[in-house]
């Protein structure tokens, strides 16, 4: 609705590495961080630097937004796209994109990435999950044993 009110036709997004993306207003609707800035302006073009998102990641996010903003695509086609989209990503890509989604404040994309990451750590051991997030445990073995005992009802 905000985009209809203003006369912006093209939005230029500048990624952390300087790569430039020109997109239509409906593509950034999902990016609330960007949208809130656009809403305050009333120009034909606007360029927005995004120092927290790299070009490769931004390209993927825009690809996702384009597919999901399209009214011609069926629900099935979008689901298939999502499936392939996650399939070609490594764990690191997912975590980076989740961070980008959090920074850009993109609700449904954040949900999508969170779900993809959850699927990777589901039914995995504590060691696997620690490794996955590269968490160095700050607990001493005694502290960890204590925690396990405290919550033993969840470790059976």
């Amino acid at each position: 609705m905000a985009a209809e009110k203003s006369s912006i036709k093209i939005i230029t997004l500048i990624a952390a590495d300087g790569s430039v993306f020109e997109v239509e207003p409906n593509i950034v609707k999902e990016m609330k961080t960007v949208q809130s800035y656009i809403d305050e302006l009333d120009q034909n073009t606007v360029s927005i630097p995004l120092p927290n998102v790299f070009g490769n990641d931004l390209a993927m996010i825009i690809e996702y937004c384009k597919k999901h903003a399209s009214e011609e695509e069926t629900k099935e086609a979008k689901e298939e796209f999502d499936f392939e989209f996650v399939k070609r990503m490594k764990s690191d890509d997912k975590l980076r994109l989740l961070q980008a989604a959090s920074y850009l404040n993109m609700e449904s994309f954040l949900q999508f990435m969170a779900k993809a990451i959850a699927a990777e750590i589901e039914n995995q051991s504590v060691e696997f999950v620690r490794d996955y997030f590269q968490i160095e445990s700050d607990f001493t073995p005694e502290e960890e044993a204590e925690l396990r005992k405290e919550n033993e009802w969840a470790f059976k």
Partner: protein
Amino acid sequence: MSNSDEITIPPKSKRLKHENEDKLSDLPDCVILHILSFLNAKEVVRTCILSPRLKNLWKSIPTLVLHSTNFSTFKSFTKFVSKILTLRDGSIALHALDFERIGSIEPHLLKRIVNYAFSHNVQRLGISVKGDICHILPCISSCRTLTSLKLSVSPKGRHNYGRTLFPKSLNLPALTTLHLGNFAFCASDKDKTEPFSAFNKLNSLVIDNCTVKDAQILCISSKTLVNLTMRNHSSDLYKIELSAPSLCTFAFTGTPYQKLCGNNLSSVKQVNIDAEMLSNYTEPPLVLLSWLLELANIKSLTVSASTLQVLSLIPDLLKDKLTSLCNLKSLKVQLKPLSYGLSMTLRTAKFQKEFKAGSEPSSPIPDGIVDFLIQNSPSAEVDIIDCSRFGGSFDNLPPFPMSSIFPQFLQPSSREPVVDDLRQRIQQLEQAVLEVQQYIQLAHEEISRERDEMSAIQGHMSMLSKTLAALKRQMQTMGLWQ
């Protein structure tokens, strides 16, 4: 920066990573909780030992997935449920609760869970249990925050086919998604039942293995309903009357027995059908055809190969003209292994046919049926998706080139020098070995497929006889069978 359009969004967090930083450090708690909310509650609690930051984060989890299958005993499951309801931070709203217990459930435990959910403003509630849920229906029936409800109640006991009666007075003003399993809808007006008309925001409805009681018509009336999914194998005779002007997609899995009717079904654009039959009856194929005639204006039709097989059981189907499906843009056929019930039915039907006319090739999609469906929309795109069934048979194996190899081995050519001749023969032999290996490989696959099929048929057979015996026993106890 001379251009006034340039604006800068300041980075929220530091860009440079410290060496001891993990992948979660840059993420706010709410994002981590977002990831955790897709996991089952047991795994969520277990994250407490990952790091000090996560030690108590699980207590803020906004969703609870409680499935008894994640626990080895019912006792440990009950204890877990009780603990998490006590220890979770009660000041945080519970967005979603998904409770599943395969097996009976103590009424007070179920009541406690449901009360907890409603006192924490639950929006999405899922309950799948065995037994009686009458005592929790009053709590559910007046929840104003609920947007999504899934209730699936299996009957208690092994041979009880009873279903829970669906309450008439549910006041759920915010409900958009409703999924019901094993319910019976009672007649409200003469022979008609109209259970969904009170849900003013209903968008998606799933009716799983439900039926009607004392009614001949199940009326699904809703101005807002967009998606309707039905799963049903029951042969109960009733009609489904659709009065849903916004209905866009209709999906069905099971055996079609109930006819569809409605004044205006032209809003329906997409139909997915995965029909199947466990034995050869005449009604389901005819009902299936009547659906395709009723849903005349659909743009996209997705059917399983078994749906087409069921349809093909109508005698002389292809000789008639189809009067619907004039606006079809896309027809998708999903190839999946047929159920044994259906493949037995088809085999019997085929044998009967073969007595009359000569044998015909068996194929996953019956001949001519695709053309039959798109006869009024010749420009429709046809997609055949994923062939998961091993299609080959012995007839399709490459012919074993026995005759072409042996004479050459036995009679060395006299015209060529000995070395060349030997080399040529070695090459041919190697080729022959490869071909034989390939043949053995294919034959192995074929044999194991046949064996699988054999054991599956035996399984099917023993299941049928067990069911039969159980039914007889049940009827005996009721004094109906001597």
